[in-house]
Structure formats: structure tokens, C-alpha cells
């Protein structure tokens, strides 16, 4: 391992500029977990199927287990630790708690990434669309009912707050 090639990598992680050296074989998930000590991102299948490792790259969800860290040079990466002050994510966290949308929690960081993407990108999504969009994130204990309800709760709250006041429609 000592003679492994390492290459310089500059990127933004959770709004902080990071300069590192990584082996090309290091995927983004391992880079976050083992070099940045951001262990909130979980690794499941390591083949892009389960969605546990989903993080935001340049504002869009991506599988960090099949994305080389070097492929994110110059990009803005946001892992679950980077959403502490994010209003939609905090609403989703509260909704996940209220709807019992997690049990063991292993899929939860990835679920929250996809959930936030749904809430922000598809404000009009119905339950069928929510389920379709969630199909790339596997949960193997709680099941999906609570997760769908939690996302529904946030979508409904956004819709209610976006609706014109009654006076305006009267």
C-alpha cells in the first residue's frame, strides 16, 4: 500500500474547501468516511443498488460508492453532516421521527438525501411518485410506509405554506 499512487484532490465538502491526496481506487464514500471522518454516510451494497451511500454532488443525489473520489474534483459534495442547518432536511428529520420512518437507521442518510431531492424537485409528487422515486433506496427493517408518510408530511406542509392566503382567493 505504501507505494500506491496517490493523486491530489481539491473539492468542497460540506461547504469547506478540502485539499487531500487519494488513491484513484478510493470511492467517494470511503473518502468521506475514512479520510474526512464523516461516517454519517453508510455503505451498503457497494454496487450502486441499495442507495445507503447516497450523497449530494453539486446539488444532485449521487451514489458515493461507485463514484471515484477523484471524479468529484472541483465539485461540491454534501453529506448528511452538512445538512444540520438545512430547513427542508430538518423538516424531514422531524417527519421521519414522527412517522417512525426508521428503525435501525442504516438506510436513513441515503433515504434523507433522496427524500430531500423529492421534496425540492417534485413539489407536486403524489404517493405513487414518491414511491417510484424512492425505489432506488432499500430499507430492510422498517419498511416504506413510514418513510412515504414522512415525505408526504413535508410535501403537504410545503404545499400548505405555498398556497395563497384565503383572503386572496375569496
Amino acid at each position: 500500500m505504501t507505494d500506491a499512487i496517490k493523486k491530489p484532490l481539491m473539492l468542497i465538502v460540506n461547504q469547506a474547501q478540502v485539499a487531500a491526496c487519494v488513491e484513484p481506487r478510493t470511492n467517494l464514500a470511503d473518502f468521506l468516511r475514512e479520510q474526512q471522518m464523516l461516517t454519517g454516510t453508510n455503505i451498503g451494497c457497494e454496487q450502486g443498488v441499495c442507495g445507503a451511500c447516497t450523497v449530494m454532488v453539486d446539488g444532485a443525489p449521487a451514489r458515493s460508492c461507485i463514484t471515484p473520489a477523484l471524479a468529484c474534483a472541483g465539485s461540491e459534495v454534501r453529506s448528511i453532516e452538512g445538512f444540520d442547518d438545512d430547513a427542508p432536511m430538518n423538516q424531514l428529520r422531524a417527519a421521519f421521527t414522527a412517522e417512525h420512518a426508521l428503525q435501525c437507521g442504516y438506510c436513513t442518510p441515503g433515504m434523507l438525501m433522496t427524500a430531500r431531492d423529492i421534496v425540492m424537485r417534485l413539489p407536486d409528487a403524489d404517493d405513487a411518485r414518491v414511491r417510484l422515486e424512492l425505489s432506488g433506496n432499500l430499507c430492510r427493517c422498517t419498511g416504506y410506509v413510514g418513510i412515504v408518510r414522512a415525505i408526504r408530511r413535508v410535501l403537504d406542509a410545503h404545499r400548505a405554506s405555498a398556497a395563497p392566503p384565503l383572503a386572496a382567493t375569496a
Partner: protein
Amino acid sequence: MKAAAFDYEKPIACDEAIRLVAATSGMGKFVSGSQSLGPMMNLRLAQPELLVDLRGITALKTCRAEGEYGVIGAGVTHAQIEDARIDDFTRGLMVHVARGIAYRAVRNRGTLGGSLAHADPAADWINVMRGLDADFLVTGSNGERTVKSADWMLGAFTTALEPDEILAGVRVRRLSNTARWSYYKFNRKPGEFAEAIALFIDDAQAGICRAVIGAIDGPPYLIANARALVDDPASALLEPHLMDAGLEPGSYEYQVHRVALERAAATLREHGRNPQ
């Protein structure tokens, strides 16, 4: 598992990328979104010594109209097509298909060209491009060439691309305003690879009514004149095509492909217009 060790380069021009891979005598691979090659490398089904990332080459991401044709860069992502962030030359067909590819997190990085160069028979674009009779625009050490859609895919995961060639984009004929299409993909879970794909493209103005039987063992099976199937998808008409596509009557595979064709034909017939 983790990928075996490899080196990584991200050039900004095609000729540089081609030079880098050509110098590895077959052990270098081009990569874009890494949504197929990434899993294969983690599973150690692929162990390239060098990955040449094509995402830095802006020329591969451009789309343009060329008269009756549209040219779509290989580096366009499925999500860009899904969101109609590029011109649609196919009356919504490509937008519809893109939405059904894997999952949004995969679509955000996976590219049209990567999928076509990977040539998984059960993937979407390889079958759709056959139905559209796209030209594959290739650039390599020996210059540029065009590969017809019939000659692109030689077998599962095998294309006409030489190791030192890049798929730069595809050229598709713009569907006319009255063109209709239908696409049926059978899989047990949304986003997984298809067990059966059926596509109809009916463009009377262009004199075209094609069907594709997809997700079979080899390249997509094209039915060049599918008019009779649209009007009457009776099993007597379908059977010769399904058998010719390598499907054995009585098998599960035969059955799901037959039903996919019937349903796609029914959709086209019932809508009488673009199903979008």
C-alpha cells in the same frame, strides 16, 4: 468489495483521452458517469489499469440540430434528458425512457454514451437507438467514423468500438409532428434492468413503422415493418419474430417478451397519438 488499483486521468480533449488509452495496450478504459463500470470494478469484474474520465470534455456534452437530424452528445446524462434540458428530437420518447432508467441518483451521473458503449442488452438506450435507427458518431486514433445502428452492437456488452475509440454522440432523425411511439419495459422492481423491452415507432410521414424486441441475449431485434403488428398483434404474427429473436416458445422469456410487444402495440393503437 473495493475496486482494484488503477490510475486515473481526466483530460479536456478527445485526442488526449484517446492517446492516454491507446498507450495502455488494452488495459485502459474510458469512463463517464461510472454507473455501470463503477459497480463492475467494485465487483472486480473489470480491472482496468487506467481510467480516463471523459467528463472534462465539453465537446461530448453538446447537442445540436442538423437539418432533419439531431445530434446528442454522448456525455449528456439521463437526468438532463429526463428534465428536457436538451432539445428533444423524438416527441417525448427519450424523455419518457430516461425517467425509467435506474434511479435518479444514477441518472444524475450516468450518460447516454456510457450506456451505449457498455451495451447491456437489457438497458434502455441501446434498444431505443436501434428503434430510432441512430447513427453512432465515433472518434478515435484513426479519425472519425459513423457506425449505423444495425452495426453498433455485436453482442452482449460488445460493440463496434475499438479500444482506442470514443463514442462522441448519436445522430437521430427528428420524428415528424404526427409520429407516435410506445415503450413498454417489464421489470419486477422499478429501476432494475429490464426483463423485456418493446418499442414501437410509427412515423407515417417518414414512411416508418418499426418495432424493437429488447432485453434479449444479444443485440436488439428490429422489426423493420411493424405495421401489421400494430393493427393486429395476434400471436401468429408475433411468433416468427420472437423465435427469430432467439426466444423459445413456452419459456418464461418468450412469454414476457410477447406480452411486452402486445402491450406496446395496444398502447400505440389505443392512444392514436403520442402517448406522452
